[in-house]
């Protein structure tokens, strides 16, 4: 369970998060919507431990652990996964090697046995097939020369193999064609279960047609200004964010 209490954070002395309160119980998927610049990506970075973001107040508990005190890699080991809004290119680093190194780092931190190359490739190929990705995605360098949509799918591939218990998906639907959107949604739905929860950041109802959220929150001006059921997304689609910040 993720419990965010009155979280405030700033970048270079500029306050971006203004007191976020949010609880995501195990097994639930919550959507976060909100205008550009509202602080959605900032929230996902603060939760995954990116440097440069100063937490000025509040707390975040993840399964009872103080998430904010942990290094990014320790958060990954604890089960947090961030699908980046803009995935990063790693020249010269093979995708299969990268993901396998990550999977084994996480397994090791959890006290599980490492996976050998053969076992890993078997799983990776199966995941690639499920995600209808071309096989050469494993051979290429991480995100280098990937199209926008391929990069997003590569994030979902990593998620599928790392098997997190909390996924933060930052606009994973942006830039996807209709088929890719369905594939990505299938990827998330496949992970659904009592031990998986997710924060799905999106601007579009069409993603939420496929991944039906338990709750929808509106983040504006650095705080959650409204929360509701799946219908809230439809309402936003119809009326926009106008007037919400005051609410």
């Amino acid at each position, binding site marked *: 369970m993720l419990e965010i209490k009155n979280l405030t954070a700033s970048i270079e002395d500029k306050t971006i998060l203004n007191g976020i309160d949010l609880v995501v119980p195990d097994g639930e998927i919550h959507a976060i919507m909100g205008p550009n610049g509202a602080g959605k990506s900032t929230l996902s970075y603060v939760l995954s*431990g990116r440097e*440069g973001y100063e937490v000025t107040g509040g707390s975040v508990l993840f399964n009872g652990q103080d998430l904010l005190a942990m*290094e*990014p890699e320790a958060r990954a080991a604890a089960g947090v996964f961030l699908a980046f809004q803009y995935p*990063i290119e790693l020249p*010269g680093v093979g995708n299969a090697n990268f993901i396998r190194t*990550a999977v084994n*780092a996480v397994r090791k931190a959890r006290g599980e046995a490492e996976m050998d190359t053969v076992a890993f490739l078997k799983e990776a190929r199966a995941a690639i097939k499920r995600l209808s990705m071309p096989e050469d995605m494993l051979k290429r360098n991480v995100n280098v020369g990937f199209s926008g949509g391929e990069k997003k799918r590569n994030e979902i591939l990593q998620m599928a193999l790392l098997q997190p218990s909390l996924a933060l998906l930052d606009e994973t639907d942006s830039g996807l064609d209709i088929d890719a959107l369905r594939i990505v949604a299938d990827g998330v739905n496949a992970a659904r279960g009592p031990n998986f929860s997710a924060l799905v950041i999106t601007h579009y109802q069409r993603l939420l047609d496929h991944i039906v959220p338990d709750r929808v929150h509106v983040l504006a001006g650095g705080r959650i200004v409204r929360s509701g059921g799946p219908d809230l997304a439809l309402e936003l689609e119809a009326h926009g964010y106008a007037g919400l910040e005051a609410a």
Partner: protein
Amino acid sequence: MAAITETRETIDRLAESGYQYGFETAIDMDFAPKGLNEDIVRLISAKKQEPEWLLEWRLKAYRAWLTMADPAWARIMHPRIDYQDLHYYAAPRAPAPKSLDEVDPALLEMYEKLGIPLNERASLAGVAVDAVFDSVSVATTFRDSLAQVGVIFCSISEAVREHPELVRKYLGSVVPAGDNYYAALNSAVFSDGSFVYIPKGVRCPMELSTYFRINARNTGQFERTLIIAEAGASVSYLEGCTAPMRDENQLHAAVVELVAHDEASIKYSTVQNWYPGDADGKGGIYNFVTKRGACRGAKSKISWTQVETGSAITWKYPSCILQGEGSSGSFYSVALTNHRQQADTGTKMIHLAPNTTSTIVSKGISAGHSNNTYRGLVRIMPKARNARNFTQCDSLLIGDQCGAHTVPYIECRNQSAKVEHEATTSKIADDQLFYCRSRGLSEEDSVGLLVNGFCREVLKELPMEFAVEAQKLLAVSLEGSVG
């Protein structure tokens, strides 16, 4: 800020623990008295029972050396070396072993500890090793199986005795005795090294490798390697090296000569891991090495691949002289410096004949307070019609206290030549580091992964077994040095 402080601490910690080859081996040694003069040169030659012509050759080199000065053009700094304060010969006292069974068990154990088992059954599949300990070769494995196909792989001292005509013909034919200060010194006092001869049309059936180990104190190491590939022959050769951790600097001035005849190919790889000194720049090896290959024959090929992570100072320019029509030379280099290490390294590609091609890929990684210079010369001579060169020099900076410099010299005296040069300088970006860490990789593993990615084009040139070792070495040499 916190991250940077933490990183500094990690570097400090690693500076103490990072070099795992720094032990010393107790072996009863025979030393020449300290100092350098004609008598010492004679003594070395006598110890090795050399023929008169070789003694004369050494003396000539010594006399030439006396008239020379050490090169001042490289971007390296060190106190003056007192050449009279060194031993020029150090060898285990026991008589030279005739077979592997006779090698001192302490030596076998040391090589075992270094991961170089000299026992043929335990060794890496398909790799023959010549082990050079201080001044002498202590063992060469798989000689018999190599001899069956006519390949000669032995120490150079032995080659002088057993194959004098070959040694006499080729020694100094690529790097003349008076070529430069350190080459002249080496020619005067070289102690041992490897000799390889691949007869006409033979593909050497295994990887050949030499493992150099400096053990004795206050001793210079001056090895000499000579590799000859006759027409149509091919060979892949690898050298590795380590030394104990010592507070004083030690000089290593080697010479390597390669000769490739018509359509022959020589691939020479180096994983250089001499002791680099401590975090404050105390101790470490001065690695002043002359390596040169002559592509004598038409369509011959010489390829240098080096991964340089060790040594306090590296001064080294493995070069190719492209004499044969259509011959080609390549140089793939990773030079990593950390702490106070200094590297001034690169290559020379001398195009003498038509249709010659050369490729240079250099990856410099600087961390800590180190200085890393790529220095390269591409010279196209008037007869080198349609010569081609492609040069790519990439520098990666880790932290903001280090220096990276690229000094390319291009001399083109034939209009039809095509010379391309690309250079980049980059840093490990914070977002790349965070991306890796958010996937569960530690900061150190992330840097290791990114650096290996940066070096990929070079690492893929190494023989498989050694590519893995080189990757680990890069990660170990860099752990924690993120700024």
